[in-house]
């Protein structure tokens, strides 16, 4: 499962870089990436979103997942890491709920029989859906490409709670925003453990 997830992750990252590249290319004509500070002024971003994941649940063989969540990001470094670029850095905290479908043919054992030596043999399987809560904590590195476009990368960790209790997993998302105005943007992420599509409110 991990190998398949890794391949998916690589493909998703390639897709996300393609997305960023296409957005950057479109924005080149009115680029703001080399004008530090030319972007919406805000200190907190609130972003409710819907979630989708093609990845399996952390502890269960499962199918795809759908969910809801919210992300809050505090701006920590308005000037970012690179002085000559229009970048900024924040720290994001979230709460995401994802419902994973059961996966046909892969699941748990519903009934065991035992050999004369007491070795269990599963004779009937069952699949079932599962629910997980994630609490991601990420660093959000923003690049303000254009008056209406920004992109970001979000590495971090998430605490998860599911059928097997608590766990910790890595988080990596690449995303982009389309800014309707200085206060509202459409925001999309791709990556692991889930994709999101939401609306950002900048305060």
């Amino acid at each position: 499962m991990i190998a398949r997830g890794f391949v998916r992750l690589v493909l998703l990252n390639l897709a996300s870089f393609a997305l960023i590249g296409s957005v950057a290319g479109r924005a080149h004509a009115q680029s703001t990436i080399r004008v530090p500070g030319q972007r919406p002024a805000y200190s907190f971003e609130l972003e409710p979103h819907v979630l989708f994941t093609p990845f399996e649940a952390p502890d269960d063989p499962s199918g795809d997942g759908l969910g809801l969540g919210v992300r809050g990001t505090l701006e920590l470094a308005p000037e970012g890491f690179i002085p000559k670029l229009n970048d900024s850095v924040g720290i994001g905290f979230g709460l995401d709920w994802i419902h994973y479908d059961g996966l046909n043919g892969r699941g748990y054992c519903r009934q065991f029989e035992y050999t004369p030596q007491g070795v269990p043999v599963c004779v009937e399987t069952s699949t079932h859906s599962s629910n997980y809560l994630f609490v991601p904590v990420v660093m959000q590195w923003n690049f303000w490409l254009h008056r209406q476009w920004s992109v970001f990368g979000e590495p971090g960790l998430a605490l998860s709670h599911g059928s097997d209790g608590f766990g910790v997993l890595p988080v990596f998302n690449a995303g982009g925003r389309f800014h309707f105005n200085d206060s509202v943007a459409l925001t999309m992420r791709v990556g692991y453990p889930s994709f999101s599509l939401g609306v950002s409110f900048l305060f």
Partner: protein
Amino acid sequence: MRRVLAVLGFLLIGLVCAVGCTSGDNCSSGHHCECSEGDQCYLGCDGDGCDQSCHNMNRCGTVCGDGCSSQCHDVQQCSQSCGSGCGLECSHTNSCGAICGDNCRLNCHDTMQCSVEVGSNSEVNCNSVNRCDVVCNGNCVVNCTGDSCLVKCAGNAAPTECKPGQFACGGCP
């Protein structure tokens, strides 16, 4: 207009990526289905003729109808159950437990314990196994390296030792 197109393109890229990443293994009849990595997984087959594989897990098992093949390796506790005409292989485990019907071919090797129950006209091979217990519910042949095998025939009848390392229930081949 350009703004609307940009937003639509933005959404379309996400949708295409999402749909493209949802293909999974097919555990239905006649297909290959696999579980690996993690704690536990039990594979079922929606019918007969599945090709099932379990590996590198703590607990893993396969359940299938007739005419299936199942491989299980590098699992602490492996379980295989199958109808008739199946081919099973289990290796590199702490324990292999298997129940299969008639005409079963089962290879158990390089593992701590094999405990299997097979139907008529079955063949069991145990190689490099610390303990191999076989219950034959009908005619069967058990090939065993070393003296680790304990074979029981239907009705608790004693097996025939055909030659060193080969036991049979219901007559030697």
